[in-house]
């Protein structure tokens, strides 16, 4: 579904990505972990063309998206949804209008059908009856759920999640993790989840990639990651700020 080859990106003087190699199979959930500020979100934004790399290749559904214009990218973006870290809801619209936005933009005019579809995805994200609320009156977890509902309403074949559980309490985080898993099982969506929450990574991931110093340092199943005795991986898993190697 997605292939990344030797992706490089510098922002200002800082080299964020230094040759990332990654593949995501259809229907798979890949979790990208790594330290804060390590370029995980930058990598995710590249996958949907929101950022352009300095060098490298990105293939989505067999098409190279590098060098595509914004208008050409719209075809790719119809297949790939994204949940932003902040939710990125349109603050002048209600929950219902936010979620219905992609349908309206796709040309759907039947209000009844649109509302039915909105209610259906609200049920999936467990927010039934919240249609009329404005984003400012929602909690962080609810915003992420609404953002997710908006991302999946057109049933994309792939969803990208940018820190879906950051800033949420453990119970809400768990419900988001379950939701990601449920979406994958129900709609067979390919998922790429960026997180530094190990519990979330193990819960939702079929495969985990550890991003370190702008490169993929490790790739494997959650079980393989736990067994890995590399000190850098161990430091991250155990949350040690001073390396055991020092």
């Amino acid at each position, binding site marked *: 579904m997605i292939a990344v080859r030797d992706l490089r990106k510098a922002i200002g003087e800082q080299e964020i990505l230094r040759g990332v190699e990654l593949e995501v199979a259809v229907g798979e959930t890949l979790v990208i972990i790594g330290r804060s500020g390590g370029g995980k979100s930058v990598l995710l934004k590249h996958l949907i063309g929101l950022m352009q790399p300095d060098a490298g290749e990105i293939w989505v559904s067999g098409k190279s998206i590098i060098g595509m214009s914004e208008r050409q990218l719209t075809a790719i973006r119809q297949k790939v949804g994204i949940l932003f870290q902040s939710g*990125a809801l349109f603050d002048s619209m209600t929950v219902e209008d936010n979620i219905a936005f*992609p349908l309206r*933009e796709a040309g759907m005019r039947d209000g009844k059908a649109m509302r039915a579809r909105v209610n259906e995805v609200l049920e999936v994200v467990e927010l039934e009856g919240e249609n009329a609320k404005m984003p400012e009156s929602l909690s962080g977890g609810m915003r992420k759920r609404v953002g997710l509902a908006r991302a999946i309403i057109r049933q994309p074949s792939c969803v990208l999640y940018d820190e879906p559980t950051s800033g949420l309490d453990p119970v809400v985080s768990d419900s988001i993790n379950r939701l990601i898993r449920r979406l994958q099982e129900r709609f067979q969506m390919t998922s790429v989840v960026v997180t530094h929450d190990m519990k979330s990574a193990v819960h939702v991931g079929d495969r985990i990639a550890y991003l370190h110093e702008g490169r993929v340092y490790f790739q494997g199943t959650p079980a393989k990651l736990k067994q890995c005795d590399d000190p850098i991986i161990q430091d991250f898993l155990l949350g040690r700020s001073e390396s055991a190697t020092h």
Partner: protein
Amino acid sequence: MIARFFIALGAPLVAFVHYLGELVLLAADTFRSVFTHRLRWRLFLQQIVEIGLLSQVVVIVTGGFTGAVFAAQTYFQFNKIGMGSATGAVVAVAICRELAPVLSALMVSGRVGAAMSAEIGTMKVTEQIDALRALAVYPVDYLVVPRVLAMMISMPLLTAECIGFGIIASYLVAIVFLDINGTYYVANMVQWTRMRDLIMGVSKAFVFGILIVFISCHKGLTTREGAVGVGRATTEAVVISSLAVLISNFFLTMALNIVYPAGYQ
């Protein structure tokens, strides 16, 4: 020393040319979109309300009081040489050709331009524009095109309204406070004011509207650095729009005076 001088001179010049280039590219993208992509009528009508309908009070007050004070000042000078009744002609021509388009544009850039850059800028820093792009919606189609079209329609109409209220206010001041004979006032005004004066004012307003909307939208779309960035973008949008209106007005006056010459001919 010399190299440093040229670097100091060149850097702002390059930045200015770069900025102009970005504005031209945004304009080209917008007009391409107008002709090749569907118009979002609901957003367009919302912008007509926001730009046109809700700016009316500001423009009416501006036009009215400018007409009133200009009539008074003109009368104070002209009456000394026995030409008090010519006040109407001077006021009408000046309002049509210069005052109404420029003052309306300045008021609209303060009210609408600021709001546009602040709204789009806030969307930019809160990832809402990235969300639009991610949802396969091109931000220029969704945010810029409705605003540009609404401004192109609203600005000339607001200016025409400003002209109308300026002339009405000047007439009222003339006959109530300045004791000018209303019939002479109107007769002189009609004799010296031509349709071309009105066309010139409205044409200028059309150009000013385009300048304001592109400068404001561009500032919004290029906003960075959170709340501080939004504040900066808003201020810059108003300042640059106002300067662009005042500077372009001179060149428009010189150019349009060839097409619509001033004076009785």
